[in-house]
């Protein structure tokens, strides 16, 4: 493992400092709290949007703070959910009186800490609602597990909820579109190599030179199956089948896709995979109206990628196209 860092225990704080310095007009850093906030928060008459989780998934979540997406992102230690007091700081910083929606990925730690923060915020008279993203089809259903994990599809939820909030919708309405999105988003990932936590200093698991782990989580949690390395075409098909066979996709749907790099997979390969995914969806007679290809929700230095498929309707398609101005996603005006 080689990482460019100073003291590993300071890496999250130093990273957040670096992010703010790159875009001081957009972001404010609540030092000591791991919170990045829009400089203009709380925005008058707008529902506040907060997300967050462990660090190591950059650009998630700080890269998505800005007009049309999040109002604040809370960073925990690497792969560790942030604590309730930090989440509470974020909630307080973005509440304009119209209430706050927290977008949480379905992990025990995140859910517990966000729950506690919501209780604390409620005690201070802030209206807080929460949605839990669980797009990872690699995980068996909740009768056998904690339920499906939230992975890269979460970024689409940030996008649509952020757009709705930007349009001045009520907390109830913003929550409704977030939940509609969640019902229509599915993802699955694969790892070619493990990742290494800065403090641990050694890989989280091992893979042979010709082995891959299908169904990996974004923290290097083991997947569903270990196989030999497949071609881009076969690998895309393997993940896409699993995603597609899960509800709710049908021929004729208009869809958005994401090909998300896990940290070390070059854009060259992500684009080859994108081509294969489009071919697959064309065969299924779906029209891909929006493609996000790049790094959105990473796992430190892991090589690999995830595919996300988002079934749109008119409302969702227009929310996805709504202008956005964050470090990692910027378009429209």
């Amino acid at each position, binding site marked *: 493992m080689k990482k460019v860092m100073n003291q590993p225990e300071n890496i999250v704080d130093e990273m957040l400092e670096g992010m703010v310095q790159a875009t001081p007009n957009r972001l404010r850093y609540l030092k000591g709290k791991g919170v990045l906030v829009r400089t203009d928060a709380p925005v008058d008459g707008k529902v506040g949007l907060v997300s967050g989780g462990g660090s190591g998934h950059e650009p998630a979540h700080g890269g998505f703070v800005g007009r049309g997406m999040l109002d604040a992102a809370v960073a*925990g230690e690497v*792969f560790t959910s942030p604590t309730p007091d*930090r989440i509470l700081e974020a909630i307080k910083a973005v509440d304009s009186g119209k209430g706050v929606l927290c977008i949480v990925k379905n*992990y025990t730690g995140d859910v*517990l800490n966000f729950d*506690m923060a919501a209780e604390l915020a409620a005690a201070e008279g802030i209206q807080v609602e929460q949605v839990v993203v669980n797009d990872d089809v690699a995980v068996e259903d909740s009768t056998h597990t904690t339920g499906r994990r939230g992975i890269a599809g979460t970024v689409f939820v940030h996008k649509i909820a952020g757009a709705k909030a930007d349009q001045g919708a009520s907390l109830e309405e913003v929550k409704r579109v977030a939940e509609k999105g969640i019902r229509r988003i599915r993802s699955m990932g694969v790892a070619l190599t493990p990742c290494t936590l800065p403090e*641990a200093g050694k890989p989280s698991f091992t893979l042979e030179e010709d082995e891959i782990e299908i169904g990996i989580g974004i923290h*290097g*949690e083991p997947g569903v199956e270990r196989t030999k390395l497949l071609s881009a075409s076969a690998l895309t098909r393997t993940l896409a089948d699993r995603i597609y066979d899960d509800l709710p996709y049908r021929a004729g749907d208009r869809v958005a896709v994401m090909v998300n790099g896990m940290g070390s997979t070059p854009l060259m390969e992500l684009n080859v995979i994108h081509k294969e995914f489009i071919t697959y969806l064309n065969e299924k007679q779906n029209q891909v109206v929006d493609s996000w290809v790049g790094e959105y929700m990473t796992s430190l230095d892991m090589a690999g990628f995830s595919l996300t498929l988002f079934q749109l309707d008119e409302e969702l398609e227009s929310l996805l196209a709504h202008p956005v101005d964050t470090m990692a996603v910027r378009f429209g005006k």
Partner: protein
Amino acid sequence: MKVVDVKNWFCRYAEVIQEKKSFLTELDSAIGDGDHGTNMARGWKEVQTQLKAFKGGLSECFLLVSRTLISHVGGASGPLYGTAFLRMSMVLKEKEHISVEDWKELLNAGCEGIGQRGGTSGGEKTMYDVWLAVTNEAQQETGDDERSLFSRLSEAARKKVEESKELKALKGRASYLGDRSIGHIDPGSESTALLFETLDQTMSQ
């Protein structure tokens, strides 16, 4: 057991966690995300710092641990341990001394807190299993010898860690592995066993 003993216990546990940091992280790497040692070490180091200046009573002492863990650990284990210590702190209100009898109620409260927070009633390969085993052991009527109580708690905890090694995880991050979690020690169960082993060791000195 007085507040000074409790402080000793917590301070010693903070050291133990520091020593076992890599081991806990390795356990978590196998079936989780490899941060349990780092998480616990961060939280308990802060507890240690806070305790140095601490002058209050029993209940406040548990409350301080609860608050510190909640705001410094993060992950699943932070809120879980934090809730356990919070509930135990409630039980200790107005008390200056924990009797052998008191441990029944104390552990009951802590254990229930974890069960509620984690939504588990046991057998799902989490730290709750160990808390439950310890709590059950405390309910046994075997006199009022503190030393023997602690050694029984410590043994019950370790035994449960070994037993639950063979379980399949149904809660937390390890549940994603399904059958592949079998044969591995749950990191939160290990840190819980260390807590009660440390109690036993501290009090037998």
